[in-house]
């Protein structure tokens, strides 16, 4: 386990279940002559040996966690082991070794065959045989700025300096391009649904929770891919085309505000050809811990790279849509999904916006009214598990899938009788931005914690200010068309959309639960 990762850090506000219930599959090699019976002995180091051969250790992958109906997020050990900064360093090391070996081979056997020449050409662009790229989301940049009392440009320069100069990455990009595509696609999706409810799905904690526990809710989830995944898809496409290399030789690392983003990146559908769109997700917390433990330095002492601009542009994919500095988008610290849709309505200056504050700061309703003061759009921003519970509960009551209770029947009668809803009714909304963390993504579990003497609320409110200082990318339909044009005939469905499905409860889980039971 990483030294800074405790169970607390991994708690992205939706707790994992007690025990992993995934039945572990052990790949049994074809048995030898003694027909399945084998003697298992314990080696001198305590490891079990079968006929003198080491037995493979049972391992659970992130994909297993995603496919399982057991715990809500996953076993922390799995997350930390498979997508840790150590894994990144291991990949860098492997790439270096591979490149050394092949260079030596080149010297001994000069390339004569065409295939080898192509191979060499490919390597021309990548001294290590692999291209490493980093994408950083605006929330993480704001967190680093806040955590180390730096300006956003200083953070960007230090990231560039560390990842490119020290680690040999090809380039560092922001996620605002991916996010802009995600925002515009979300608007198009909502608009096409003719008043039907859409629940945002870019929070992996929330979507996993819905997939594992609330069958009735899945139909409402937006099918738009997240900025993280779209960015990955774009990077792999543009770089592999431009450098004529296999997408698998591009290693894409994403700096994100939350641990559940690791699970998202591991979803089997998030592939570009046969390469993962995102190979590794690390959080701000893990990143600064890596600097400390592996490089014996801290973020502030990384040099600023001042000549950034030109240099930086030369390393970006040539067709990367934005060669400017990394940007952000308008609206909430969770990406501004609802704000983007509201802005579309408010382009018509006869429309007006009404903000209705709910029971708490993490529950805010936004209504758009037309010139006749009729409500033409209802949206809400809902953060945190307790508020999620309430929208899930309302939707379940509406779907009639819960048990028939007196209150549910009366509620039906009431809503028929009076059109004016006294209470919040999520089912008459068109778009709800849902995030599992109270305060949204800025308060993600992977963000840098406040010092002991600074209260969390204060910290988050200051962080929000930092975040809002990042200049915004002006998104419009032209931009969307231009970006998609760059994908040259590629399926926009594949780039921008995904699917969610209910994960059936496995009956074998019952026995697993009772094993861990303490009354």
């Amino acid at each position, binding site marked *: 386990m990483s030294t800074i990762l405790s*169970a607390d850090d991994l*708690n992205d*506000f939706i*707790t994992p*279940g*007690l025990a992993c219930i995934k039945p572990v599959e052990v790949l049994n090699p074809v048995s030898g002559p003694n027909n399945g019976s084998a003697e298992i002995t314990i080696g001198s180091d305590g490891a079990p040996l079968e006929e003198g051969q080491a037995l493979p250790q049972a391992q659970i992958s992130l994909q297993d966690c995603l496919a399982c109906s057991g715990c*809500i997020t996953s076993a922390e050990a799995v997350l930390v082991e498979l997508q840790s900064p150590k894994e990144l360093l291991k990949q860098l090391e492997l790439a270096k070794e591979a490149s050394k070996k092949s260079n030596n081979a080149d010297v001994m056997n000069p390339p004569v065959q065409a295939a080898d020449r192509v191979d060499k050409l490919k390597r021309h662009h990548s001294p290590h045989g692999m291209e490493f790229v980093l994408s950083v989301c605006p929330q993480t940049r704001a967190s680093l700025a806040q955590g180390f009392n730096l300006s956003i440009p200083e953070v960007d320069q230090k990231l560039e300096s560390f990842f490119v100069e020290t680690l040999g990455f090809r380039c560092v990009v922001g996620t605002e391009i991916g996010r802009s595509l995600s925002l515009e696609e979300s608007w198009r999706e909502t608009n096409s649904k003719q008043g039907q409810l859409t629940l945002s799905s870019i929070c992996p904690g929330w979507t996993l929770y819905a997939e594992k526990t609330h069958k009735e809710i899945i139909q409402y989830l937006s099918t738009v891919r997240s900025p993280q995944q779209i960015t990955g898809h774009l990077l792999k496409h543009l770089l592999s085309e431009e450098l004529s290399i296999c997408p698998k030789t591009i290693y894409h690392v994403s700096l994100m505000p939350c641990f559940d983003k690791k699970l998202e990146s591991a979803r089997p559908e998030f592939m570009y050809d046969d390469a993962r769109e995102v190979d590794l997700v690390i959080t701000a917390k893990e990143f600064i811990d890596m600097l400390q433990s592996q490089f014996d330095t801290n973020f502030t002492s990384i040099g600023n790279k001042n000549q950034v601009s030109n240099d930086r542009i030369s390393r970006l994919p040539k067709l990367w849509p934005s060669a400017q500095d990394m940007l952000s988008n308008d609206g909430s610290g969770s990406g501004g999904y609802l704000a983007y849709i509201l802005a579309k309505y408010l382009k018509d200056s006869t429309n007006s916006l009404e903000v209705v504050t709910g*029971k*708490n*700061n993490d529950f805010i309703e936004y209504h758009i009214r037309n010139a006749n003061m009729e409500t033409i759009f209802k949206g809400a921003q809902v953060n945190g*598990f*307790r*508020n999620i*519970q*309430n929208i899930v*509960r309302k939707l*379940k009551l509406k779907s009639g899938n*819960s*048990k028939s*209770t*007196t*209150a*549910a029947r*009366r*509620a039906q009668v009431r809503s028929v009788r009076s059109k004016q809803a006294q*209470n919040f009714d999520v089912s008459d909304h068109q778009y709800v931005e849902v995030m599992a963390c109270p305060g949204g993504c800025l308060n993600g579990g992977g963000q840098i914690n406040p010092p002991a003497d600074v*209260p969390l*609320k*204060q910290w988050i409110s200051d962080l929000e200010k930092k975040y809002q200082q990042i200049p915004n990318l002006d998104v419009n339909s032209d931009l969307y068309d231009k970006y998609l044009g760059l994908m040259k005939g590629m399926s926009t469905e594949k780039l921008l959309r995904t699917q969610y499905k209910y994960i059936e409860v496995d009956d074998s889980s019952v026995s697993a*639960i009772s094993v861990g*039971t*303490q009354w």
Partner: protein
Amino acid sequence: MNLVQHEKPVWQVSVNNYTQVPLICSASADKTAKIVDISGKILKNIEGVHDKSIRTASWRPNAANPVLALGSFDSTISIFALESGNWEFLAQLEGPDNEIKRVSWSASGTYLATCSRDKTVWIWEIDEDGEDFECVAVLQEHSQDVKHVAWHPKEELLASCSYDNTIRLWRQDDDEWLCVSILEGHDSTVWGCDFDPEADSMRLVSCSDDLTVKIWSMVSRNGGYDNSGERLPSVARWDVASEEWEVEKVLPIAHEGTIYAVKWGPNGLIASAGADGRIVIYNRDTSDWKVHKVIENAHGVYEINSLDWSEDKLVSGGDDGSAKIWNVSS
């Protein structure tokens, strides 16, 4: 006297002291809950609502009609209300991951707290119609199974106790419920706790697998909840509230097995019971707490899971499937 008999163990007994005639509910592993009067006459047998054991029951204070919350190992909570002579299945609450261990209404009847093996405590707020429930908090600070929740008789102060050996106290600050105190002192699972029913008292009794019954009292509080009026209400209060609670008294050791239940009666008596099948009544004479009475083998050779008071009568529920009522004079 035997009040009621279930086919399987009785997990909890709960007395409704808010009605003219006390109503007693017994929640059982046989998936039913029975509502009886003090003579044992069955007024309602609730069955077919929960798929697994009904673990817990709580009556809502301050309600015009009797309202009952039940919590089950099937991870759901059901609400029943007596309306024009009928027991209506009013609502069902879902949310916690697994077994509900305890449900408890706040003194005002506004909040329902539930706790579960999933280590969480949920607080639900009921609307004025008494029909719509909203989750206002999911408290995830216990590191293990949460066994029990109990409210203060006057203030909106909640106590939860756990397999992690601690008791935690919770209060509302702005729109958040925050842990204001962690009571550490038991060496093993804290199975139950109960506030002193005196409205102005700040005392709590707890029972544990470590065979002790302890009385805790508040010694200081600071931050957040200063309502003295010296502070301008518009000034943001960033200071986090906290309270200090200390063990005031360890009651005389009187059990030989895990103590599952403790209940502080309106008559000032404290009752405890548990795995040794013994009910122990403690009273306070002049200055010190003494063992007042011991009922051996109250449910035969079976363990006792729950206790509740109705005036001078004590109700107990045990693994023999029975709920019994005892006269206890102070």
